[in-house]
């Protein structure tokens, strides 16, 4: 077990290094974008004097490294600064939206992961039957359509008929059940988008193992096909499945801006897009760090779980 802890510690340290590099890259990339906050916020109404005044006010006229080091030292002290655009603390802007984003990601994952695993296992079990073909075809169809198209179709079927709301509004004081109801359509859209990947991976990993000699042995002993798959094949297929699940979870947190726009869902993606287009660097940086952390942590979790599920890695000599 000790080496697992060592791995976690090592990976966390590397994760921090990654975050540092990401922050530097994002800061530099925002710098490379044409125009800065002053020009973006004034748009067509910009005059040289007002642009200069905004730059002076917010310290945007300082050189790149001064601004970056200033930002970094504040962050190391836990201060993510204020949004350039509306002077609200970045933490305050982000916390509620992060909650919304995680809620939607977990909601979608809670539907997608079991669905994908069950479909994947059944598809492997009934390989090359009508069921296998149908579930593959449906999953591939839903992943092949662009997200907004899936979303519009769902809105046409479920929202225009009045079953579910087409835009998500979290009014103050609504209960958990009501939240689930209101965000059902975006969660369903995401479920349809991510299920195929996980299901196909589950199916492929299992089928791969089903050809190995020890499975044949199990079959020859007269075990039921279900038991062969769940008891003997699945534990050995866990590592790739865990990895693809982690990858999709990270996507659910970081890549859902299109779904957010279509359903007017107040998540992090929209905040990121607005902030980039206004060159609101403190917000862009903070959101980028959250996205990067999500990838680092989920990958770490996947690796730890794969290690735990694999006796050869757990009991190394």
């Amino acid at each position, binding site marked *: 077990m000790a080496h697992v802890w060592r791995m976690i510690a090592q990976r966390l340290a590397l994760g921090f290094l990654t975050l540092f590099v990401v922050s530097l890259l994002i800061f530099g990339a925002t710098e490379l974008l044409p125009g800065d906050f002053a020009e973006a916020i004034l748009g067509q109404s910009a005059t040289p004097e007002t642009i200069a005044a*905004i730059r002076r006010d917010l310290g945007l006229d300082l050189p790149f490294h001064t601004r970056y080091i200033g930002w970094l030292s504040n962050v190391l002290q836990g201060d993510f600064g204020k949004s350039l655009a*509306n002077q609200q603390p970045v933490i305050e802007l982000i916390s509620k939206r992060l909650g919304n984003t995680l809620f939607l990601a977990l909601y979608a994952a809670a539907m997608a992961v079991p669905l994908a695993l069950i479909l994947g296992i059944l598809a492997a079990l009934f390989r090359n039957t009508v069921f296998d073909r149908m579930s593959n075809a449906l999953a591939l169809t839903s992943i092949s359509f662009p997200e907004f198209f899936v979303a519009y179709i769902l809105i046409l079927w479920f929202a225009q008929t*009045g079953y579910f709301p087409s835009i998500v509004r979290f009014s103050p004081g609504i209960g958990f059940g009501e939240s689930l109801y209101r965000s059902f359509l975006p969660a369903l859209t995401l479920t349809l988008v991510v299920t195929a990947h996980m299901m196909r991976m589950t199916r492929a990993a299992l089928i791969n193992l089903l050809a190995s000699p020890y499975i044949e042995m199990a079959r020859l002993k007269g075990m039921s096909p279900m038991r062969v798959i769940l008891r003997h094949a699945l534990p050995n297929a866990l590592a790739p499945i865990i990895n693809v699940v982690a990858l999709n979870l990270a996507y659910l947190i970081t890549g859902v801006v299109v779904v957010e726009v279509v359903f007017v869902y107040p998540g992090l993606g929209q905040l990121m897009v607005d902030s980039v287009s206004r060159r609101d660097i403190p917000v862009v940086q903070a959101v980028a760090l959250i996205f990067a952390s999500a990838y680092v942590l989920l990958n770490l979790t996947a690796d730890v779980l794969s290690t735990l599920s694999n006796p050869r890695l757990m009991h190394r000599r």
Partner: protein
Amino acid sequence: MTKSITRTGLTRRSVLRGATALGAAALILPAGMRAASAEPKKGGILRIGMGSGSTSDSLDPGSWADAYTQVFATSRHNYLTEIDADGALQPEIAESWEASADAATWTFKIRQGVTFHSGKALDAEDVIASINHHRGEDSTSAAKPIVEGITEIKADGSHTVVVTLESGNADFPFIMSDYHLAILPAKDGAIDPASTDGCGAYVLDSFEPGVEARLTRNPNYWKTDRAHFDGIELLPIVDGAARQNALISGQVDVIDRVDLNTVHLLKRAANINVLSVTGSQHYVFPMDSRAAPFSDNNVRMAIKHAVDREELVEKILNGYGTVGNDHPISTANRFHAGDALEQRTYDADKAKWYLKQAGMDSLDIELSVSDAAFGGAVDAGVLMSEKSAAAGINLTVKREPADGYWSNIWMKKPFAASYWGGRPTEDWMFSTAYKSGANWNESFWENARFDQLLAAARSELDNDKRREMYVEMQGLVRDEGSTIIPMFANYVMAHSTAVVTPEKVAPNWTMDGFRVAERWWFA
């Protein structure tokens, strides 16, 4: 000697009423089919879905730029003056105003008994601090250029404000209706730009930028015949399809910026009215008059004649607009030239003739477009390119990135797309974008006669003389200017039939001059 300018003095000339035939405020539905505008009823929460608004929106009046912040601001704030549905100026916080004979000194009487939401009584100091927020060396306000003409602003007693201008401006009270110039409470001579306090129709309950704003009716609002809703919920719904869906499924009551590609489908939906208002919003293609080949007026005239305006209105605006005559004054303005200037039409032969005058057989130009300039700008460029080919003009359409369009393309590339929300007065529009050396003179056009007329008309208080001058200026911009103005785009909104609009909806801005919250009501 002071000359009093009364409300009637500034009312739109009756001549222009005739111009409503051109669609000064044409509602799509025949009058009989509209919900009867009976006595307004109080009650209900109006939910508005706006096609703008983002997480970067701020409460600072100097930063308001899109319709979301503008409607939001107008719901909770008052201004010195208000433009009514006919384009005439009405008193708001200013009860009345007077100009000196040269129109360079303006005295505003401030209304007594108006209080802010916080309970503070409004006086001259608040007005002065609110205007000063946009002035001065350190101003970061987008409205700085429009108050630049003010040299001094001071109180004369607790309820009188005297404004001194650099030079006479007969339209100055109009400028005071600008959406940036909201009256906020002053503290130690300055306003707090992060304050939510105002003296308008609705009090802010909560505001989450990019998500929603909630307001409730101000129980102490001084206008007793306005603000009929119990509350307002203002939602940014940037995606056009999402906005329409929200209206169809009853999650909002009003939307703006109806997608013109699908408006005919929306009109079929039950219980929904589409509202289309011809205002001063226009789409333009400025040419850099300093750079060849646009420095030659013959080239500019050739290009102007090679644009099929009817087709642009038909295909880009889906019919929801009117053709432009290469000048920026709309039928909603007081001094629109009307029949005094002949409507320019597509004429390939004339375009060729002008090219020949310029000593050319053919012309190669590049047009920079992006949908950031206006929705459909790229398509408009392609249509123009098709049509101008017949006149020997090879117009290459270059699609530019929407991101950073206003800082990198507009006024940087010699020929680009742009738009104007329009201004309520001729002087304002001309001095913003057509005067020599103006900050936003996007075509860098300079014309001595035009500048001279502009200065003369500004301080002229005789409306007939002003009209003459403004018509001549429209002609100058049309025939010598360096901007193609092919179309005026309607403001197209939609609302559920439960919502009642006044008989006439204001054309000066979208959403009834941004005043939907205080002018409309539920049936």
